[in-house]
């Protein structure tokens, strides 16, 4: 009889386990297909839903079928409560936050994932299998995986929080050569910690906890000092990089639990995130090391002597110029988003359209705070997709453009990228606004762009500057155009 019960237990065990494994396989496939679909405009939304379905499947199945040492998951009530809490807060934040603040939001959520990974490592460390320690001491795979998960997770957490603060304007850049040395030192220290802890031999994991806390603290510190010196304009690249870090941290958890869905999900994001980071760097024509070590903002070209004269334009003149130019090209930058001027831009566009003006938009790959960010913002304002031109297309048509209107953009139209090989942005593909017949630049003041360099476009003979808040200027221009009817 006992044997039958045992056999049955064995059977139910394998049944649950195999259902779990099957759902994990399905979830992994859903992640892969979802990611694939996410990279095509037509299927992107469906892809996101596929991936989310995979996630839900994996979570529910873990709750129901997961067994460790023959025991089901305990504390189900608490776990469900935690998931409900997270869902509520997450949905609220994700729905409420303004679209301009999206990059911060992605960074914030990324940090949460990193923190979760770090916490898991911290809690699993005392539970390292005693057999393993007896056989190999601290030098074993579990210890390595836990330490890496802890380190990468916490770097990703603190780094993401700094990136969040920077994008939100709460933290300003600190540029200092010293910080680079500090960074190196911290990194060396972290490696030393890993080597030391793993060489401890057969010790009780609990006795190593103080060391582990120190390791955690240094990891958090490294995340801060790693992101601190990187300029605000480079934050998208950093967020993408930290995103792939969190992926790797999640994969470490997969190693730890021999959990395939965590492994595939984590590594997939780790590698896709790395490629995405490189693609973003390419869009700016810079290398990753260049971004991380921060070559921006170093040399300020002091050729202001030959730069020439700034010519301002008034509201009414700007309105006339807009209304009587057959072909207008709007070049939006982050300034437009900051001023929340997307809707007004559309209204001006609409009005001009009624008056027979042909309006297009030229979108630089890195306009806004993240590649593609500007497209999202314009889409939010209901600006039709076919009016948006990519850089190359826009540049081809540029000499036929009667009026280029630069709204809150700076570095992406700076001819120094093409003319001055010593410029920090040399070689970056730009929108060749200087080729247009007339140019209006809407700008708050004469401040420098993120790259911290002068823009010769502003001194061009064809350029007129319209200073002021983009939203207010556009409103006045709109009223002026309406008065002309």
């Amino acid at each position, binding site marked *: 009889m006992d044997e039958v019960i045992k056999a049955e237990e064995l059977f139910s065990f394998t049944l649950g386990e195999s259902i779990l494994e099957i759902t994990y396989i399905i979830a992994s496939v859903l992640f892969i297909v979802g990611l694939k679909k996410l990279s095509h405009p037509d299927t992107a939304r469906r892809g996101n839903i596929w991936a989310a379905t995979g996630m839900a499947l994996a979570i529910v199945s873990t709750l129901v079928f997961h067994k*460790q040492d023959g025991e089901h*998951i305990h504390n189900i009530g608490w776990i469900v409560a935690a998931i409900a809490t997270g*869902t509520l807060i*997450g949905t609220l934040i994700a729905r409420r936050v303004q679209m301009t603040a999206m990059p911060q939001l992605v960074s914030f959520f990324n940090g949460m994932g990193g923190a979760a990974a770090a*916490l898991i490592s911290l809690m699993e460390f005392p539970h390292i299998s005693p057999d393993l320690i007896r056989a190999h001491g601290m030098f074993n795979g579990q210890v390595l995986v836990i330490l890496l998960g802890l380190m990468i997770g916490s770097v990703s957490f603190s780094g993401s929080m700094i990136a969040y603060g920077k994008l939100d304007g709460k933290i300003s850049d600190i540029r200092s050569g010293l910080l680079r040395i500090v960074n190196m030192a911290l990194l060396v220290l972290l490696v030393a910690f890993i080597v030391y802890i793993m060489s401890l031999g057969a010790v009780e994991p609990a006795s190593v906890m103080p060391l582990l806390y120190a390791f955690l603290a240094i990891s958090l510190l490294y995340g801060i000092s790693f992101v601190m010196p990187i300029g605000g304009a480079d934050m998208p690249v950093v967020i993408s990089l930290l995103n792939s870090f969190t992926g790797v941290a999640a994969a470490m958890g997969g190693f730890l639990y021999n959990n395939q869905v965590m492994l*595939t999900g984590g590594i997939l994001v780790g590698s896709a995130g790395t490629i995405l980071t490189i693609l973003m760097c390419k869009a700016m024509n810079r290398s990753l090391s260049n971004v991380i070590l921060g070559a921006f903002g170093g040399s300020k070209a002091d050729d202001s002597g030959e730069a020439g004269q700034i010519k301002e334009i008034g509201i009414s003149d700007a309105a006339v110029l807009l209304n009587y130019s057959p072909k207008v090209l709007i070049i939006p930058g982050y300034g437009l988003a900051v001023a929340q001027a997307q809707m007004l831009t559309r209204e001006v566009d609409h009005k001009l359209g009624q008056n027979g003006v042909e309006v297009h938009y030229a979108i630089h790959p890195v306009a806004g705070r993240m590649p593609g960010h500007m497209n999202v913002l314009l889409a939010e304002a209901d600006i039709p997709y076919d009016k948006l031109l990519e850089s190359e297309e826009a540049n081809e048509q540029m000499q036929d453009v009667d009026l280029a209107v630069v709204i809150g953009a700076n570095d992406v139209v700076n001819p120094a990228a093409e003319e001055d090989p010593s410029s920090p942005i040399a070689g970056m593909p730009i929108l060749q606004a200087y080729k247009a017949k007339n140019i209006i630049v809407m700008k708050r003041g004469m401040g420098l762009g993120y790259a911290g360099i002068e823009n010769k476009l502003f001194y061009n003979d064809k350029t007129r500057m319209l200073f002021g808040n983009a939203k207010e200027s556009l409103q006045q221009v709109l009223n002026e155009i309406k008065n002309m009817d």
Partner: protein
Amino acid sequence: MPYNLELMESILEFIYLHREIIFILILSVFLGVEVISNVPSVLHTPLMSGANAIHGVVIIGAIIVMGHAETTLALILGFVAVVLGTLNVVGGFVVTDRMLSMFNKKQKQ
């Protein structure tokens, strides 16, 4: 010298014990690269956000930790981990959907 041998053995054993998972790891790296290598720059932001939600799969680990928590402290820490993981997952997917819904809207026009 014997110490080095032992070290070598440990590493080899580790690789042997985890051979399947190492396989998955290597294939996943190539897959990740392959899957997104042709993405247009318009989709960089939503894609990053979607990928961000996917690494929220770390929540599975948080659930496992919490499911086997024995002390109150472990339970509390586990609770925090699950909440953070859920924030990552739910927030990530919802915000990605919100971004992409805007692209859809304009396609209808």
